[in-house]
């Protein structure tokens, strides 16, 4: 094969490869993404580590997030950290806030405009809105709707905490 033909074929293949990478990128950022959830804050719904989740970006884009949904959001305290929590209330809702330790009190608060209240299912071991306040809705990256790992945990993610 001549060099010219070889170069031509290499170029065509890299164009297709680039298009494929871009497609994966667009699909992952705008439609459905595979993500890991780490940390004890969502026990017993998710394990401390190793759970692999499917995240869809459409509900947050079209403002269809509802109380009870598990979402991934950028942390207000660190923009590069993505946290996985449950939405307890939308703007205007009155949420019942669980105490952060066994000695705390239950209290009620109203979620301000444009914000949501996030809380981990593991109330005693979760850093969430009880620490950093209500979170702007626009920080929500997507809704967690399915768990694909571990195999015994395969299935949809429900809109209420597993008790």
């Amino acid at each position, binding site marked *: 094969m001549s060099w010219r033909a070889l170069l031509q074929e290499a170029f065509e293949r890299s164009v297709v490869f680039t298009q494929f990478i871009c497609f994966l*990128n*667009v699909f992952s950022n705008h439609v459905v993404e595979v993500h890991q959830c780490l940390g004890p804050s969502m026990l017993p719904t998710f394990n401390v580590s190793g759970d692999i989740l499917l995240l869809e970006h459409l509900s947050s884009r079209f403002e269809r997030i509802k109380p009870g949904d598990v979402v991934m959001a950028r942390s207000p305290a660190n*923009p590069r950290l993505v946290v996985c929590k449950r939405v307890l209330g939308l703007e205007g809702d009155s949420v019942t806030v669980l105490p952060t330790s066994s000695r705390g009190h239950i209290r009620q608060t109203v979620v301000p405009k*444009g914000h949501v209240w996030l809380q981990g299912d593991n109330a005693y071991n979760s850093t969430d809105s009880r620490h950093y306040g209500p*979170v*702007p809705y626009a920080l929500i990256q997507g809704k967690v709707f399915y768990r694909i790992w571990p195999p015994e945990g395969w299935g949809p993610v429900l809109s209420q905490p597993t008790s």
Partner: protein
Amino acid sequence: MGESLLSSLWLLTKRVCAGAVVGITLSDRIGSVATMHGRSMQPTLNPAEDDPWGYLNADLLFLEKLSLRTYNFSRGDVVVFRSPLEPKMWLVKRLIALQGDWVTVPGTYDILQVPKGHCWVEGDNAEISLDSKSFGPIPLGLMKGKVTHVVWPPSRFGPVASHLPEGRVLSQKAGTRTYP
């Protein structure tokens, strides 16, 4: 005859889709252009908004997205971010202070420290701008890009200067900001 039309339509569709995904990737990761409306950044941006045809002469801005990888924003940058009050609205303001800095709140004698992971934004047109003076410091996670250039109209083509208005930031916490 019908077959070749269908196959050339199919080829066109494939080409358009391929171009679209590459374009979206570039727009998300490298930079994009956007129009802006409103007077909160006058005179830096959109000085024509008050004219009768101002709406049609709205500035077209170039937004760079590379700084979003590490959230590398500096004081004085003009930034685009999603509004903390209306999730669908994108706002353009100048970033005045980063986490740890102390800012004065105009109209009061208060001073305020910008919390961890947050920033303080203000419009250049202080009287009419709806910004951190009303909604407080905002999480950096809301940032969507940095305005580096004005692309249209041609008479205003050029870079957008990054400068800090005087006297707003009382004390700056030293060092660059990195977010682990």
